């Protein structure tokens, strides 16, 4: 129905704000749940945290020391108490103290966050670029181009990070010797990791973009644009691309998450400081506070990212979501 629709469109902003508030509430909930799940999950892991604190299970620690540590970290408390204490600390933004690293988790995570964020954001950008170029190049160029394009995307999407990373290192570091296989002070060290993360992601984004790009190019408004004398490029940039971008944008939230997972592998291979590597190490030495801390930060980043992407897609597509009242057909 046209009338409510128009109104909805005019007052479109306020509900989005209200939505934002709802989102924040939801975010808090999710963070709480994430903290809880992680806390108990890591507690289920075999192995005594107290050992982890005293230089790992390899160390020969005296019972006194263990007892002391248990007391110090409240590990002698009943699980529920520990859990509540943990929540209390988290609520005050205190991520607690690492068992293994002899330092507080907050500063540690913060120091590692930057590297991972840079990696993830750059990779996302590069992935977008690749996907866009590929999709635009291979659509409207006949079936062969389209098949090549989607073929490339499918292959890209199927590349395991660690395999890709190794191959890139062999080719660009060992054979060509043009790019460093490890992080460096300057940006060169970023190239291979970013590419490693970006290529598979580009495959996914590309597939999504192509779909919507094709549908957009088939739609009547493109025809009438052509009827106005619009050129292919004009059609692409002024009309089709924007439609093509929509699903990819809404995907970016998920993509960010997957990039973080990818970081675990990539940071290890390319010896980059970052959350992924921190996490892997922490997990292998049962460093509960660090694990929880990283997970919390990652979850937070993920939530923020989804909110951002939602706003982005709202900007890119200002159409109101509700369509009058449900009609019979």
């Amino acid at each position, binding site marked *: 129905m046209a009338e409510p629709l128009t109104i909805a469109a005019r007052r479109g902003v306020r509900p989005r704000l209200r939505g934002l508030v709802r989102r924040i509430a939801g975010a808090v909930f999710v963070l709480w749940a994430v903290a809880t799940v992680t806390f108990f999950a890591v507690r289920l892991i*075999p*192995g*005594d945290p*107290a*050992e*982890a604190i*005293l*230089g*790992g*299970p*390899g*160390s*020969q*620690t*005296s*019972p*006194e*020391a*263990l007892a*002391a540590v248990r007391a110090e970290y409240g590990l002698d408390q009943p699980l529920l108490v520990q859990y509540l204490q943990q929540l209390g600390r988290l609520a005050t933004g205190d991520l607690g103290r690492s068992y*293994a*690293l*002899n*330092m507080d988790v907050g500063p*540690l995570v913060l*120091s*590692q966050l930057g590297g991972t964020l840079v990696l993830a954001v750059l990779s996302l950008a590069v992935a977008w670029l690749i996907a866009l170029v590929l999709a635009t190049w291979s659509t409207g160029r006949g079936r062969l181009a389209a098949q090549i394009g989607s073929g490339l995307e499918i292959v890209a999407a199927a590349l395991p990070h660690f395999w890709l990373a*190794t191959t890139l*290192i*062999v080719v660009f*570091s*060992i*054979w060509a*010797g*043009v*790019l*460093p*296989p*490890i*992080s*460096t002070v*300057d940006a*060169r060290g970023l190239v291979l990791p970013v590419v490693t993360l970006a290529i598979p992601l580009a495959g996914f984004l590309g597939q999504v973009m192509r779909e919507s790009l094709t549908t957009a190019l088939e739609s009547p408004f493109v025809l009438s644009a052509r009827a106005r004398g619009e050129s292919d490029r004009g059609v692409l940039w002024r009309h089709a691309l924007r439609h093509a971008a929509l699903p990819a944008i809404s995907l970016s939230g998920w993509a960010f998450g997957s990039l973080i997972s990818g970081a675990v592998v990539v940071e*290890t*291979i*390319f*010896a*980059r*400081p*970052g959350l992924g*590597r*921190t996490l892997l*190490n922490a997990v*292998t*030495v*049962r460093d509960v506070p660090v694990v929880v801390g990283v997970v919390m930060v990652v979850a937070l980043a993920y939530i923020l990212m989804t909110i951002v992407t939602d706003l982005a897609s709202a900007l890119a597509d200002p159409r109101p979501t509700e369509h009058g009242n449900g009609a019979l057909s």
Partner: protein
Amino acid sequence: MRLDASVFWTESNNATAGFPRTAFVKRDRRMPRPGIVPSSPRSATFAVLAGAVALGLALTGCTTATPDRSDEPAAGGTLTYASGDAEPTCLDPHVGGNYPQALVSSQFLESLVSLDTDGTIIPWLADSWSVSDDGLSWEFTLKDDVSFTDGTPLDAAAVQANIAHLQDPETGSSTGYLALAKVTGTEAVSDSVVRFTLAQPDSALLESLAQPWLAIESPTALTRSQDENCAAPVGTGPFIVDSWVKQNAITLMRNEDYTSPPADAEHAGPAYLESIVWRFIPDSASRYAALQAGEVDVIDNAQPDTISQAESSDTIVHLDAPRPGASNRIELNSGKAPFNDAAVREAFIRSANVDDAVASLFQGSAERSYSALSSVEPLGVSEPDLFDYDPDAAAELLDGAGWSQKDSDGYRVKDGVRLTVVFPVSTNQSIPAEQSLFEQIQATAKETGFDVQLTKLDLSSWYTALGSNAYDAVSAPYTKIGPDVLRILFHADGITPAPSGYFANHAQVNNPELDSLLTEADQTNDADQRASLYEDAQELILNGYYILPLYDQQNHFLLGSAVEGARALPTVSTPAFYDAWLNR
């Protein structure tokens, strides 16, 4: 243009690469010992390689080769070291005390005494020492006017503080704590003389003190919180901890006022290198690639295949430094079936084709060991014929032991129980080549009828598996100077786990005769007697088929061509860069 330059440079480098080698070999009787393994020129591949590397260096913006190169040590420059070991959680080796800590802390901490390449104790922070006849009291005279990099002077009190620190449970020391088990007290005889009082004689005391885990730190620094001390321990060493960015790098700056090199050092005064960047690159492929690309100058934990590549290259130099203490071996859990039966143990050992495996996997970078001790241990006893591959003998032994039936899968069974060997493998402690070795043993033992079940575990799960006695075979390295390591590994006391579940006697050898031998050897001050006691002990161990020795604890470093004068300390084979300089 650049290629010419690099060719010229690598040639000259090749020449220079030889120099310190010979210098070392002279001093070095038993090969393979700490020292630089020669690298023969291969002019065919050589120009290309050189070109590639030079190009890599140029493009990666590192300082490219300068045509004029001297063999005279040049001061200055930054050396980048890439470690494949886990990043230490604390740089103070007093805390916990594992090899990764030793690796880095040897750059800025020093011990009272050291070892020369013959395994003889030589002075370091202590000029001289004496022991009372009952062997219960030791006096160490410290070097004069040595001071820690925070200005605190090195004196008897400082040593006392360190011993106290090591023995304080709060510190959570493991290795050092054990090594000082017999030390009941210390006193300052004078400013420069400190006396140790022992409960029983300890023939291994000096060797223990030579270890980096008992290095002497600034007492002032030790009073700081453990966090601060872990982040930047203060010692007397040639370098100073400048900064530590977790997961990334530790930056070490030269100690300009350095005065206390060990007796076997090449030069006096401050180190040549201006600074060392100590990086952590867990991925072996990346690590080697980084070395090739010239991003780093030295890597440790070099993989066999990269070593053999290095051997044939002229741009990378191989430094082989097997660790002291125990050899790498598979310990058979004699505490429970099936290995509580010596025959079965022997059968297993005979059924495992180790020689071929070592040959193929380590491509000459590792030598088969038939001893419980590392080849660098002077008192090591080797019994090759006990460990040769003999499937038929193995089969007979098993038949004799009642494992005569075979099930459908070809595995031996006895009263319906399959001859299973649970073998947890620590992915942190066994390099891939070693894990492959185990797989090959698994394969060859299968032919005789053993069902070897390998499970790769991360460190924590691995220790948990050991703690819960859920293993039949296991391989755990143990680094310690001197044969006293045998006491730790094979004395019955080592069976009862520490509160953390850790125990060293994985073979669960419980043999009173052996125990008494070890204790005696540990307490005698007469060298010959000590030697014979340890020999008897080793015979007992080897003939009891408690262990399957494999090879020395592998400890390979690869050095970029620019690195000169680097060596491994004869103590626990940690790299030392005091004499090192960059020939760029």
